[in-house]
């Protein structure tokens, strides 16, 4: 039982990363009918930006000889990195996708992949080939609850992820910008007739998705403090799988599917050799899609691309 609960805790943390990244995929797909295949690399850049901001804050603090508590640095790092990474998202939208809005979807997909490669090379170029280690901002405290080991970091990671997911959910349900996003997901062609600029909503969606990816990147850095320029590739693909599994445009679906992927991976690794983990885990995902081709919360959908 303790063994099971231990894995459950790990799966929750692992799933948080997938879920946070999957939300960005899902939002962009639902409003623009395109997959932003650069999103995994935006997560990676977000982690590096977090690394830069955290390091910068620590240097500043030591220069001016005052002490910033680690948790405060972490909070500031998350907020500043979200802000900075959102600009990367908006830039990608403006330069990479907006000119292709009427182009075939395959062109947009390829563009995403290319932007991803460019981001990887830029980071490689700027940071060198060596992996960098994310500064340890808070000390790990381990609690033993009935044989299950839970660290303060795990609790924090899951709590922060869930808070952002809840905040996003409320934003989309309650605000007029969220309302515009939902409208755009339903029928984006007529949105301008409401006096709403498609470009504004698209830009905002990329900004939010990228900010959440930055949160995932920093939390990942806190949990596994080694960053490398290719870390976004596999995470990106798996989060993409979660977005599909969740169903088109469903925030709830992407969240649940992100966590589910975490669970499947961790529990498969619990039973089978870890080299077979992804093989078995993604066969299970494939099987789910056979029975639910539109994902958990998706519905059959045909886009109207003209007024």
């Amino acid at each position, binding site marked *: 039982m303790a063994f099971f609960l231990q894995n459950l805790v790990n799966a929750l943390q692992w799933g948080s990363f997938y879920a946070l990244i999957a939300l960005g995929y899902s939002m962009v797909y639902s409003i623009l009918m395109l997959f932003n295949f650069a999103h995994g690399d935006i997560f990676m850049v977000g982690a590096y930006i977090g690394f830069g901001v955290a390091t910068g804050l620590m240097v500043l603090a030591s220069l001016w000889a005052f002490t910033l508590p680690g948790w405060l640095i972490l909070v500031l790092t998350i907020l500043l990195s979200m802000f900075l990474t959102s600009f990367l998202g908006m830039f990608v939208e403006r330069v990479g996708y907006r000119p292709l809005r009427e182009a075939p979807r395959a062109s947009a997909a390829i563009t995403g992949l290319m932007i991803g490669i460019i981001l990887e090379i830029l980071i490689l170029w700027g940071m060198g080939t060596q992996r960098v280690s994310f500064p340890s901002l808070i000390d790990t405290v381990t609690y033993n609850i009935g044989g299950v080991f839970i660290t303060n970091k795990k609790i924090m990671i899951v709590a922060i992820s869930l808070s952002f997911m809840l905040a996003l959910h409320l934003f989309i349900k309650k605000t*007029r910008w969220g*309302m*515009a996003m*939902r*409208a755009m*997901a*339903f*029928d984006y*062609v*007529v*949105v*301008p*007739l*409401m*006096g*709403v*600029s*498609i470009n504004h909503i698209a830009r905002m969606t990329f900004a939010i998705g990228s900010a959440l990816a930055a949160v995932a990147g920093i939390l990942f850095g806190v949990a596994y403090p080694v960053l490398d320029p290719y870390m976004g590739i596999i995470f990106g693909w798996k989060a993409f799988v979660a977005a599909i599994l969740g169903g088109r445009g469903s925030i709830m679906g992407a969240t649940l599917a992100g966590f589910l992927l975490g669970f499947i991976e961790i529990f498969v690794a619990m039973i089978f050799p870890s080299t077979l983990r992804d093989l078995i885990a993604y066969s299970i995902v494939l099987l789910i899609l056979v029975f639910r081709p539109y994902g958990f919360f998706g519905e059959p959908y045909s886009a*109207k691309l003209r*007024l």
Partner: protein
Amino acid sequence: MLLSVENLQVSYDKIKALHGVNFDIDEGEIVTIIGANGAGKSTTLRAISRMVPVDEGTRMTFQDKDLLKYAADKVVSQLGISHVPEGRRLFGNLTVLENLKLATFARKDRENIVKDIERVFAIFPRLDERKTQKAGTLSGGEQQMLAIGRAFMSGRKIMLLDEPSMGLAPLLMLNVFEALKEINKEGTTILLVEQNARMALKFAGRGYVLESGNLVLEGPSEELLENPEVKKAYLGG
């Protein structure tokens, strides 16, 4: 003159849909464009609301402002031109109230919005009863009411209506046109595009007849209703 359209040309994939259409609308008028399916009626409205690109040589002004300088969303939010599109195109996943509120997204006069929503509910009491329901669950008539209500919320100098009678039972159709008359009396100019020519001409003060991308006839509605060619082609003999 409120709206002036000169030499309006639109092409879809290099095939001309409109071959240089000219017409004007004065403030407060109700004008209709009638014509067969595929004549270019919807395209005309889409060109005015900047939803389709126009060809070189087209000139359109609204209150002496060059329409071609405005993007589709600015046509609504800055010029007050609203468009009820063909097939209504409501946001079925949003509630009735949300559909109305979304249409006010860019409005600066926040204080008037509540009042305007009440006005819509006064014109269409059915929408008030259904305000928390998803728009996708409404009947055809209610959907048309909501589409008009939504346009009322977004911009009110002129309302472009694309086939509002489509799919409605005759009685419901009369209700919708009554409501439009009321909206017009309160100062909204109306440009109506219809296949149901008899209904449209009875409702409008003036009309134009569009055939394969050209305006071939124009005049006061009473004249068009008596015109033998119009009678033969559009009023069933």
